[in-house]
């Protein structure tokens, strides 16, 4: 039986959510300036209304629920889980008012897709969408990605399956806010460097591709924000294929890989420390998986009979694999071709790449390389245990910032999350298969995996005219996948305990 939260706990969570609402409101109000500069007056009033409403709700919550009580780990988890829902609900207001979605469910879906770094879209007539609203979607991606990394490093025990192991492993680190500020500052330095480098590189690439100088800034912002936050939103319906440029593809690939790389690895690289990077279990797992899945994808594309020349096969195949493996979802070909023209092997490899995902403590989604590596090591260890004499003492270790002994609880917790991901991929796929009209098992599984692993690759099952259940299920999947399940379950348990728990 769960314990009922006290009034003070509700007040603390409400206070923090109020602060979050004010941040989202302020961001929308700041974007009013972008709409004003573009002379998009209806978009300006939409952003102002969204910003005003969000700020009103947030300010009322902050003033009524003000508290000096520190945020501890358990409250932090609840705020993180509820925060994504609350931010999506208010971030959706300008999208709803743009008129490019059928209803509020579709607008919330779009906002949640941005905040979770997914990039699946129910927007209609994207190619005529006001630029300020389009860029607002991209800002949601960046905000959600940044917030997730900070929270993952300080609250969600980055990369591991669960348990209340704080970053420093001691009680002092259970005080969340000081950790959050320190981590946010550190992350900000890394992120700022990547953003500046990304903007410069993409700006040059799109100018070379033939985009006019004034428009190229918007394209550079959109490409950089999507690639670094591993989301699939783009300014045009043709995604990266719009540019027909190998230099744009190269820069975007580099940014996607940077986005899916762990914050800690970036810190090491910033300090020129290569050895700790190469020793890390998740880095080694990533290299092995990328090579295996890359070979499978290229062989599959070759066998499909679609690609007869090596260069187009390599260029299209590698870009799409990197996009899937980093759980970004940007494409160079219409995504429908993945199911109509690429055979079975290549799409299967892409689904596997999406399902596994990127590194921990990064905006990438999926099961995460670290978990895959841990489970693999656990399996190898158990096999060795069977083969060795009973009296033998077997110690398996792995590298993650330091050398750690692989414990049974680590493997068990990791396997639990891995099973949750796999179960959600399959369950979501079954729902999509039965509720979707004309979808087949491959398409349904691809769509479900894309939603749960926060990848934006859709083969067309998810459409604006689809039944509501086909929008609700992926929406929940995106939320669950972003939070890696445990925070979401903590929130659900908290809500269930509200009306009746142990007193």
């Amino acid at each position, binding site marked *: 039986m769960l*314990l*009922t*939260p*006290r*009034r003070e*706990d509700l007040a603390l969570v*409400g206070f923090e959510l109020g602060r979050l609402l004010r941040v989202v409101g302020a961001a929308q*109000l700041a974007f009013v300036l972008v709409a004003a500069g573009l002379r998009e007056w*209806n978009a300006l*009033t*939409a952003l*102002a*209304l969204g*910003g*005003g*409403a969000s*700020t*009103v*709700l947030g300010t*009322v919550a*902050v*003033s*009524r629920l*003000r508290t000096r009580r520190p945020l501890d780990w*358990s409250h932090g988890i609840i705020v993180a889980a509820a925060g994504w829902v609350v931010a999506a609900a208010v971030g959706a207001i300008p999208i*709803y*008012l743009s*008129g490019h979605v059928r209803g509020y469910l579709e607008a919330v879906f779009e906002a949640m897709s941005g905040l979770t770094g997914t990039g699946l879209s129910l927007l*209609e*007539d*994207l*190619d*005529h*969408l006001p*630029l300020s609203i389009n860029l607002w979607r991209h800002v949601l991606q960046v905000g959600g990605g940044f917030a997730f990394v900070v929270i993952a490093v300080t609250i969600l025990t980055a990369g591991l399956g669960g348990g209340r192991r704080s970053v420093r492993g001691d009680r002092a680190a259970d005080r969340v806010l000081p950790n959050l500020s320190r981590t946010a500052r550190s992350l900000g330095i890394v992120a700022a460097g990547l953003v500046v480098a990304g903007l410069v590189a993409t700006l040059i690439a799109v100018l070379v591709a*033939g985009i006019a100088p004034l*428009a190229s800034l918007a394209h550079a912002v959109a490409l950089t924000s999507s690639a670094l936050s591993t989301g699939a939103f783009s300014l045009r*319906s043709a995604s990266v294929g*719009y*540019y*027909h440029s*190998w230099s744009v593809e190269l820069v975007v690939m580099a940014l996607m890989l940077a986005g899916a790389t762990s914050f800690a690895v970036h810190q090491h690289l910033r300090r020129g420390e290569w050895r700790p990077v190469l020793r890390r279990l998740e880095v080694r797992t990533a290299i092995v998986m990328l090579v295996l899945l890359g070979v499978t994808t290229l062989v599959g594309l070759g066998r499909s009979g*679609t*690609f*007869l*020349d090596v*260069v*187009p*096969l390599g*260029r*299209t195949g590698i870009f799409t694999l990197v996009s899937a493996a980093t759980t970004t979802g940007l494409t*160079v*070909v*219409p995504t*429908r*071709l993945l199911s*109509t*023209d690429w055979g079975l092997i290549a799409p299967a490899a892409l689904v596997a790449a999406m399902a596994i995902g990127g590194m921990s403590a990064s905006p990438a989604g999926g099961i995460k390389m670290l978990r895959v590596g841990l489970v693999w090591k656990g399996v190898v260890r158990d096999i060795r245990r069977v083969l060795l004499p009973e009296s033998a003492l077997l110690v398996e270790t792995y590298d993650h910032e330091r050398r750690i002994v692989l414990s049974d609880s680590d493997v068990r917790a990791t396997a639990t999350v891995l099973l949750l991901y796999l179960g959600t991929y399959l369950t979501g796929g079954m729902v999509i298969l039965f509720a979707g009209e004309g979808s087949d098992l491959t398409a349904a599984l691809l769509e479900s995996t894309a939603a749960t692993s926060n990848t934006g690759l859709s083969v067309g099952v998810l459409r604006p*005219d689809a039944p509501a259940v086909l929008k609700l299920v992926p929406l929940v999947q995106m939320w669950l996948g972003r939070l890696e399940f445990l925070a979401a379950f903590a929130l659900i348990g908290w809500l269930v305990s509200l009306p009746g728990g142990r*007193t």
Partner: protein
Amino acid sequence: MSDRRPSVRTVSQWAIALLSVLAIGVVVDAVRAPEVIDPDPALAIEPAPDPDAPGVVTCERTLPDVPMTPEGAPPPVPVGRVTSTEVIECPDTFDGHLVTFVGEVIGDVLERDDGAWVLMNDDAYALQVGPVAGGSPLRGTNTGLSVWLQPEMIDLVDHPGGPRWRGDVLEVSGVINRVDPEDGGGLTLRAVEARQIAPPVPIDPPLNVPQAVAAVVAVLFAGGLTVLERVRARR
């Protein structure tokens, strides 16, 4: 977290919060601009498709074998007009064939040394009802093809489509490349002929006054509340 239930005061605070959220929802829904009943006739290039026609594209079109021709020369047998949906659903069916395609030029004309890439959409927003930005009804997502224009065709494009324009509508004849080696493997149409069939149309939606009023009220209210809250916090 321990052992006391929320008080009546806390429950009423949550009720007020919920009512506030509902009120905001009602206002936002009320000010959203309605669809335009009579869109500009200049936006309708062709009539809407038959609503009773089957929506699922099947790849059963019977096409002649593509004859062997010198490299660069299009096959002599055109197979008629295609839609982007047909080509994307059945790329192998149309690969190498000379087709006709009608669509709105979108976004940018990406000029290169010997021509230009354009994105041409043939969805309802391009050919029937016009862009949503002008108040047109929602008709699904955009769909189109990447088209390579020869240098002499670039001048046919006066203004590509975007938030404030329904762009030039062109009719192009060209060869479908399922995997265009000069485009890194993309699905493209390389035009051999092109003509403009509709000029660009500016989209200038009127200001949504109820939305503007609601926005002003919301921002002023938010500003006032923020000032009050800061004053109260300092005390």
